């Protein structure tokens, strides 16, 4: 189903930094994403799981080419085998790569819903849009309403519709179901699962591991702006034994259905990253080699991991 096809998106060693004002006149560089590697194949759902402030939402902007002016990007991104240049990003945005944003602020508050989802290219795909709304259980009269008249759940589904209507090959969903119960989230995302099953690729960016478990084929763990491990969902659900990175293990143990155990320490700041492995200040197994240089991503038993110790 999945991995036999070549990857539709390959991101390697991606770094994104911002110039920001520091004290007084100084400016410093905030490295919000560093050494990020992900690959997505057609027909799969890849979940990128990380805490808030880990930079995962910026990944979506980086792929779409929508970073603000004071951002600097390094590393490479390839879509369907070809490099993803700014010009190419402009062409692919909204046509082959679609984005489901986080919040209602992405909708124009002064435009009716129907018109917004239809888009600006003629001929307007009105019939298709109506069909998608029906499939998402949205009432028919919603097309004449304004965003402020909709409930949270309806807004989510309208945002999902904006991506579904484009027939994109790659869909990036950024926290598409914040605060929804698992059942509601599953209902909202069923269409994405169906699209993945039909051969499209979906990247799901979330902090909610339960959602990733129910929905994704593979999970990439994100920490302080870098990817630390990628495993199949099945392996992650089995338990800490199948996970290799100490952070992934800590995540598993912290879940309420498991040990509900917390883990000391906190995520380092983008402006204050440690030299070497970003997890080393918190890691119980650290050795001098961890602090010297950032470990490379290594392939391991059906996944990848970025750790000096992983066996």
């Amino acid at each position, binding site marked *: 189903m999945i991995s036999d096809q070549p990857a539709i998106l390959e991101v390697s060693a991606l770094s994104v930094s911002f110039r920001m004002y520091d004290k007084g006149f100084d400016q410093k560089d905030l490295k919000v994403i560093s050494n990020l590697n992900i690959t997505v194949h057609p027909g799969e759902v890849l979940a990128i799981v990380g*805490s808030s402030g880990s930079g995962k939402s910026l990944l979506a902007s980086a792929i779409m080419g929508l970073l603000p002016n004071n951002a600097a990007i390094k590393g490479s991104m390839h879509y369907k085998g070809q490099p993803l240049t700014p010009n190419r990003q402009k062409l692919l945005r909204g046509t082959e790569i679609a984005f489901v944003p986080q919040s209602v602020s992405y909708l124009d508050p002064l435009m009716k819903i129907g018109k917004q989802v239809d888009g600006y290219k003629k001929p307007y795909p009105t019939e298709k849009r109506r069909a998608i709304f029906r499939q998402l259980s949205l009432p028919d009269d919603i097309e004449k309403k304004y965003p402020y008249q909709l409930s949270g759940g309806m807004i989510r589904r309208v945002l999902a519709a904006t991506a579904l209507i484009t027939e994109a090959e790659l869909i990036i969903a950024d926290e598409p179901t914040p*605060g*929804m119960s698992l059942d509601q989230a599953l209902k909202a995302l069923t269409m994405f699962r169906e699209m993945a099953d039909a051969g499209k690729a979906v990247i799901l960016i979330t902090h909610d*591991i339960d959602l990733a478990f129910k929905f994704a084929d593979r999970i990439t763990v994100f920490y302080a702006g870098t990817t630390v491990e990628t495993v199949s969902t099945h392996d992650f659900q089995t338990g800490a034994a199948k996970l290799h990175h100490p952070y992934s293990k800590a995540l598993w143990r912290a879940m309420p259905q498991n040990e509900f155990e*917390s*883990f000391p320490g906190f995520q380092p700041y983008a402006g204050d990253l440690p030299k070497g492995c970003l997890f080393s200040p918190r890691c119980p197994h650290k050795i001098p080699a961890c602090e010297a240089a950032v470990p490379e991503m290594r392939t391991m038993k059906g996944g990848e991991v970025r750790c000096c110790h992983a066996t």
Partner: protein
Amino acid sequence: MRLEANKVSFRYDKKQPWVLEEKNFAISSGEKIAILAPSGYGKSTLAMLLAGYLQPDSGTVRLNEEPLPTKGVSPVQLIFQHPEKAINPRWRLHRVLAECGSLREDVLSGLGIQKAWLDRFPIELSGGELQRFCVARALMSGADFLICDEISTMLDVITQAQIWNTILAEARNRNMGLIIVTHNYELARKVADRILDISR
């Protein structure tokens, strides 16, 4: 001590449908009750009524048979889902802690609040870090009842575990009444003695 809502009904506007109709709820000190339901069933509204942020259109909310105090530090504290909205964006974070009246090192270290964060502005910290400040503020205010409205829904599991473990320890020590509003069944099971499903 006992916190009760008797036949409370509430709607945001005369033209809107009722969010809550004749709902009853009671909690005593030392109890931990989870209010479970998907979004849209009025859990947050009930939480705000119990804490005195909203007044019911009919019915009463009583603390030990008396109406909730309107002046002074409220013995019923509510922690909201979005910490960015509950903190003044122009304040440095040490002021947020000072606002509650007392400072307790054990609460701060239990929640993992770093000294370096105290001098920062809210925009410089993540949601998880900010929520720790909101929880600290509520705990250190000396409340008898703590209502947690989806406080860890937007947070990753490790931060969630850390915050809840601290709250549970404090609730045990002070015999606080704890109301946990959530849609996460596993969390409710782990934290509460009793689960109230208000979607039925």
